[in-house]
């Protein structure tokens, strides 16, 4: 008997159950939905976590920033628990086959095939009514697609955020008639859109009809994107299956739930990375964003019309004001730099004038001195000749004016 078989045979299930409940008690939870795999909301550990977190966040004095972070951790921990719970079923199934490699292979293949069929079903269903969305069954009714969605739920899509505007009602109205929903609604949408606009409010009617069309276009691309993501999840599971079988062949082990989780993440990243490199992704992403923006823009226009009619401030008016403000800022910048240059020039001129008058004064003083000394020379023939005194003064003056000229040149270049 192998070690593993011995281990599983020797499990005291009552003890296991006790430990399981002990772990849950740490969350102050009531194990009402234990072992009922299905949607993430039904997961017992998740519910326990949710309950614990609600208690903690009410009673804690944690800063907003840290609380926000902890919410993210809790959200991802819930996903981690959910995966653990579901994989425990897979592990339990495999343990029955013990060391028979081929049986394990068959079991893993079967389970992953179930999953792939389920995802294909999902993709097809997504095109039909939202009410009929059936995510299928995998490993005892695991709602993997729901899990996939929940995995990212802690992060609001920026588009969703952007839609939280005054145009929400319009958005809802348009979405109601968007594609990928109940065929009756689609029919109704087409009927509404085929009614010609008439009367005084013709333009408004046109805009609403266009908005509905744009909403439908966006919804279609959104569905296509969802289908692509679903396909990726399927591919990731296929990759995971291959890796598990490879490990089975090589005799390698996954010895903790964390390793299984990491393998799932790695498989998804690899598949996703390959996808985002493709032209198809680029095109679909472009269509998705563009259709959303077109829809938002028209929503804004309709809102603006309403606000204008009520004499309320509009984005259009604000944009115009901000544009004028921007142009004024630019003008001020230009004026400031011109003013600075002028000031520098003027300062320099003053410096030149000052230095010239200083030079002139010096010359005058020296001339005076020279006169005095000439007088003295005439009085006494033994005194030094006058040119010897004036010469250096003249030289100095010339030098100074040259350097001023050079300064002026620099200023001119600056202009």
């Amino acid at each position, binding site marked *: 008997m192998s070690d593993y078989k011995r281990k599983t045979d020797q499990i005291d299930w009552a003890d296991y159950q006790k430990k399981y409940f002990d772990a849950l008690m740490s969350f102050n939870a009531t194990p009402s939905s234990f072992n009922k795999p299905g949607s993430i909301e039904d997961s017992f550990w998740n519910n326990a976590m949710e309950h614990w977190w609600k208690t903690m966040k009410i009673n804690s004095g*944690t800063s907003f920033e840290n609380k926000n972070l902890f919410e993210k951790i809790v959200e991802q921990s819930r996903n981690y628990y959910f995966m653990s719970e579901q994989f425990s079923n897979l592990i339990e199934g495999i343990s029955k086959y013990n060391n028979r490699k081929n049986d394990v292979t068959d079991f893993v293949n079967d389970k992953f095939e179930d999953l792939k069929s389920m995802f294909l079903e999902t993709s097809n269903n997504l095109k039909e009514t939202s009410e009929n969305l059936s995510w299928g069954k995998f490993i005892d009714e695991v709602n993997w697609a729901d899990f996939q969605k929940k995995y990212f739920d802690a992060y609001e899509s920026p588009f969703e955020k952007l839609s939280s505007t005054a145009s929400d009602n319009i958005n809802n109205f348009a979405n109601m008639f968007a594609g990928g929903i109940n065929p009756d609604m689609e029919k109704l949408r087409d009927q509404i859109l085929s009614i010609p606009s008439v009367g005084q409010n013709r333009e408004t009617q046109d805009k609403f009809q266009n908005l509905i069309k744009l909403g439908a276009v966006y919804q279609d691309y959104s569905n296509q994107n969802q289908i692509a993501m679903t396909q990726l999840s399927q591919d990731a599971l296929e990759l995971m299956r291959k890796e598990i079988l490879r490990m089975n062949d090589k*005799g390698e082990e996954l010895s903790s739930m964390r390793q299984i989780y990491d393998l799932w993440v790695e498989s998804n990243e690899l598949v996703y990375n390959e996808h985002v490199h493709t032209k198809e992704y680029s095109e679909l992403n472009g269509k998705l964003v563009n259709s959303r923006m077109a829809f938002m823009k028209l929503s804004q226009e309709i809102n603006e019309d309403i606000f204008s009619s009520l004499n309320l401030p509009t984005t259009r008016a604000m944009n115009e004001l*901000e544009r004028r403000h921007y142009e004024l800022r630019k003008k001020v910048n230009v004026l400031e730099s011109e003013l600075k240059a002028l000031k520098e020039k003027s300062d320099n001129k003053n410096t030149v004038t000052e230095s010239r008058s200083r030079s002139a004064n010096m010359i005058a003083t020296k001339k005076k001195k020279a006169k005095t000394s000439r007088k003295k020379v005439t009085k006494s023939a033994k005194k030094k000749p006058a040119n010897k005194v004036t010469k250096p003064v003249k030289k100095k003056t010339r030098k100074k004016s040259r350097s001023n000229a050079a300064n002026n040149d620099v200023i001119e270049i600056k202009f």
Partner: protein
Amino acid sequence: MNPFQVTPNTLAEEIHEFNSKLAKGFETLSNLDEIDVGVSEKEPVYKEDNLVLYHFKARTKKQNSVPLLIVYALVNRPYMADLQDGRSMIQGLLDEGLDVYLIDWGYPDSADKFLTLDDYINGYIDRCVDVICEKHKRKNINILGICQGGAFSLCYTSLHQEKVKNLITTVTPVDFHTKHDLLSNMVRKIDIDLVVDTLGNIPGDMLNMAFLSLKPYSLMGQKYVDLVNILDDEKKALNFLRMEKWIFDSPDQAGEAYREFLKQFYQENGLVKSTVKIGNDIVDLGKIEIPILNIYALHDHLVPPDSSKALEGCVSSKDYQALEFPGGHIGIYVSGKAQKMIPPSVAKWLSERT
């Protein structure tokens, strides 16, 4: 052999241990105060609109005589280059005797939505350079550009080469159409005009989501499960929180500048084709003749190495040097490995050219 060596017992124990760590983590987080970032002492020397030019206080007696201006990206906040003691590129540069300035672009508001790349490059950057030149009585300075700031620095150098003595680009995209450029593939078919006309300024959250969606399973999920394992260590928790704060501290983007950058750089790949127009001037990287040090990260998932390495073929500089960092886009500024490698390399390269 069965690859799943996980029994119900070990599974329950694993979950129990995880729960305990989670509870301990909550205790750690409850005891932490607000997260402080930006470690090096600095003072504002110039302000204009939302922009602040900072001058960092010297940490050495002797300094390189040519000041170094760091031009950060418009995306995220510049304190990533000065995150915390021992994990700060700026601190490293100061310790190497460099005289460091940094442009903090601030948070553009609605009134900034018409700012163009001309305003950023020929306006703000140029005025900051003038302020530093005037202060140091110099005709030119050294510039270090970070990511998008690197692309701006290249444009600036091409247009105002006389004011740049040496240029350092770090994780800077140059060729926006390389094979592994996911961001480029993501935006290639988006109608940027429609986006900007609809949104005005581009919300920072939207850019954040774009960056996170490049590795969604790791960056939005696994990271937080990993975090549970280190939350019992206050120091490690703080390190994580600082980085987390930085990641989600995303200023909105001035609409017009975003329009020009996305269209001319990402969609038209204008930097390598010499078609980028800033104001009335065409950016021709071929005009750049000054010394260039181009630092890129080997495992960069935002700016692939090939995108940065393309610079060599675009410039005319005879003094071009590339430096490969064995890490990622952010690791190049905050990792322990980076602290030992980047600032000393930059300082040595600059001192040889001063």
